[in-house]
């Protein structure tokens, strides 16, 4: 019966890539709302337009976010999806699950919702796709009982996410999963109760490959790095070469700083680590031969966001190196984060992301407010215009320096 009525969606059951229509039909078998949803989407396909309205505010007790309200604009015709809210469930760090956790999520969602999910949302949450207002609290209760909590939505901290890091990757420069778990737990209040000018996203990648795309997608990017030297196993290098790796064209030529040289005789490479910018390329091409350094930590970048309003920003370096100490609960990071939030909260306009605020106010002000030291690593290059500010403290420092000099000069004379 349903088949007949949805010729357009049926087209999307064809083809080799797993079909979302097929997934929906699986749910539709037990969930009438999903059948209705399919019909509604079919109509969207016919009319080339969406049939959802702006969401109203719905939620669960004690929280200001975690649920996205959604209403159909044709409630009479499609009553089963007149309300079709989503619930954002905070994923475990690195999206690691076991079958038990998966099943418990499924059970809750079978009971309270459409049975459709997004594994995962673009921010990282496990998205439970479609339920009604009366179910929200119960669903949350059951989730909580099963050990799950909600993620962020609205003007708050959004659900942090992290790459698999030390669990599955030899490049990880710190414990991405632990940090993600720690930050998420420490800032539960910021996550659940919107009270900021706008959203704030944190993404955590264990090395410069940035497998969570944090520089593009997070207000704060935490990206692993090291400050000593790449560890080289010369025997393994020779094996790659013997195995046919064209080392010049595949490695040396792509090194952005051209800081690797190769000794053809010895089949050894030599890395000028002082000039290496830790781009990962050589390591990624020869993972058996090269390893990230030993003195590890992370680079912090701030300001990344998508295109609305000022156009997209990529996060920029605000701290070239920070040690991420599990032992002291990542205190340095937390202190900084709280200073950043405080300044942002005090100064931002409604719906102004941190990057936009810094653009408006200037990095100088931001650095002062957060006690960060200006370093050249923060910029591609220094300013090209001569439009810089002088503050009373600059003149005071100047005067002091001058007087110090005078004193020295004076004492010389009196000798």
């Amino acid at each position: 019966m349903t088949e007949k009525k949805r010729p357009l969606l049926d087209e999307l059951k064809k083809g080799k890539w797993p079909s979302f229509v097929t997934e929906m039909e699986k749910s539709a078998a037990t969930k009438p709302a999903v059948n209705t949803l399919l019909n509604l989407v079919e109509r969207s396909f016919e009319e080339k337009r969406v049939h959802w309205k702006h969401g109203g505010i719905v939620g669960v007790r004690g929280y200001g976010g975690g649920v996205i309200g959604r209403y159909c604009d044709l409630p009479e015709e499609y009553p089963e999806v007149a309300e079709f809210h989503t619930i954002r469930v905070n994923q475990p760090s690195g999206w690691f699950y076991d079958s038990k956790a998966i099943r418990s999520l499924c059970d809750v969602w079978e009971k309270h919702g459409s049975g459709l999910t997004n594994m995962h949302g673009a921010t990282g949450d496990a998205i439970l796709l479609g339920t009604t207002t009366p179910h929200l609290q119960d669903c949350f209760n059951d989730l909580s009982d099963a050990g799950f909590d909600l993620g962020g939505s609205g003007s708050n901290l959004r659900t942090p996410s992290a790459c698999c890091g030390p669990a599955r990757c030899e490049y990880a420069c710190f414990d991405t999963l632990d940090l993600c778990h720690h930050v998420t737990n420490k800032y539960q209040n910021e996550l659940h109760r919107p009270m900021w000018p706008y959203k704030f996203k944190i993404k955590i990648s264990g090395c410069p490959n940035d497998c969570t795309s944090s520089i593009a997608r997070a207000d704060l990017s935490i990206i692993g790095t090291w400050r000593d030297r790449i560890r080289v196993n010369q025997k393994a290098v020779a094996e790659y070469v013997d195995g046919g790796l064209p080392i010049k064209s595949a490695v040396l030529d792509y090194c952005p700083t051209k800081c690797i040289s190769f000794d053809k005789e010895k089949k050894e490479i030599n890395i000028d680590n002082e000039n290496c910018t830790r781009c990962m390329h050589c390591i990624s091409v020869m993972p058996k031969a090269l390893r990230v350094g030993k003195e590890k930590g992370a680079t912090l970048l701030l300001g990344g966001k998508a295109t609305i309003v000022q156009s997209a920003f990529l996060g920029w370096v605000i701290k070239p190196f920070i040690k991420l100490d599990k032992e002291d609960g990542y205190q340095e990071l937390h202190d900084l984060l709280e200073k950043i939030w405080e300044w942002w909260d005090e100064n931002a306009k409604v719906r102004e992301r941190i990057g936009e605020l810094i653009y408006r106010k200037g990095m100088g002000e931001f650095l002062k407010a957060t006690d960060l030291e200006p370093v050249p690593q923060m910029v591609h290059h220094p300013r090209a215009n001569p439009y810089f500010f002088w503050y009373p403290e600059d003149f005071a420092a100047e005067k002091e320096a001058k007087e110090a000099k005078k004193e020295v000069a004076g004492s010389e004379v009196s000798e």
Partner: protein
Amino acid sequence: MANPYYAKTDIGPPNFWNMLPQVIKDNYGNWLYHEKVKPGVLKHVGETGDELYTVRVGSPRLLSIETLRWFADIADKYCDGHLRFTSRHNVEFLLADGTKVDALVDELEAAGWPVGGTGRSLKNLIHTQGWIHCHSAATDASGTVKAVMDDLYDYFKKDDLPAKLKISMACCLNMCGAVHCSDIAFVGVHRKIPKVDDYGVANGCEIPNVVASCPTGAIRPNPKAKSVTINEEKCMYCGNCYSVCPSLSIMDPENDGIAIFVGGKVSNTRKGPEFSKLVIPFIPNEPPRWDSLVVAIRNLVEIWVKNAKQGERYGEWIERIGWEKFFEVANLPFTDKHIDDFTFSVPTFRSTTQFKFTDKK
């Protein structure tokens, strides 16, 4: 009240540690290197010599609980119950025992779940809600993605592209997929200014917020109607005012569609992160299979496969040959729309006589 019970709040997510298989716990932070076993299968080797196999499965992201439960079953069968999802929404099965890999792959493939997407392959297509759930969508997400992935399926299954290929989509300019740094990005776009429903604005929206929301200052208060007016010359259809105020509907089935951007990336590898750049300003919405979109993307992929050097991601290839050559090779028209006219436009203008001639331009 129907519901007298309120659950504990602020418990946070489940602890990941409890989700990890033993081999990971044993080698946590002590992995030595990894190898590609075959497309879709990775082997990580620990300092102890322990091995961890990962089998990556393509996912449409929109999954029913039926499927999730089946994945759980598979995980139980082959992986002591362990699985994860990737930052691009693939499913990964994790096993310590390499001998089970082939059987696992076979069972997944037999059920229609493609194993692949590792190494120099096409990755899963990051995307957003579209007509399935969002009020803001200028195009559908799941439908376009399915059509494109069906067409490019083979590239997901093989590991022989010049480099990784990351295609992403977002259904409106909010860009929830954060697609703006992808090798190829397609984005739902509007082309007409919002229709102002004065009554709705007056009764449902905060005028100062609405005015402030417009990146180009196109919105002025209209005190008479207690509403706003939109300056047609300044509006570039971003829809941000609509995000703030539902009574400024920007949807227009006739004129909504898709724009394509290419050459972005995020990794700090070789070249730092880069935005994707506009190459095709508009492709109409053509449900159910968006044929023009599919063809356009295939062409974009194929010219790269044909012309890039080994190791060059999309944008690195273009950087080497120059954008003028790219437009020539891609046989795409270059229009006023391609030239930036927003805040940071000036640094994008070519301030040098260094360029290549094309078509005697």
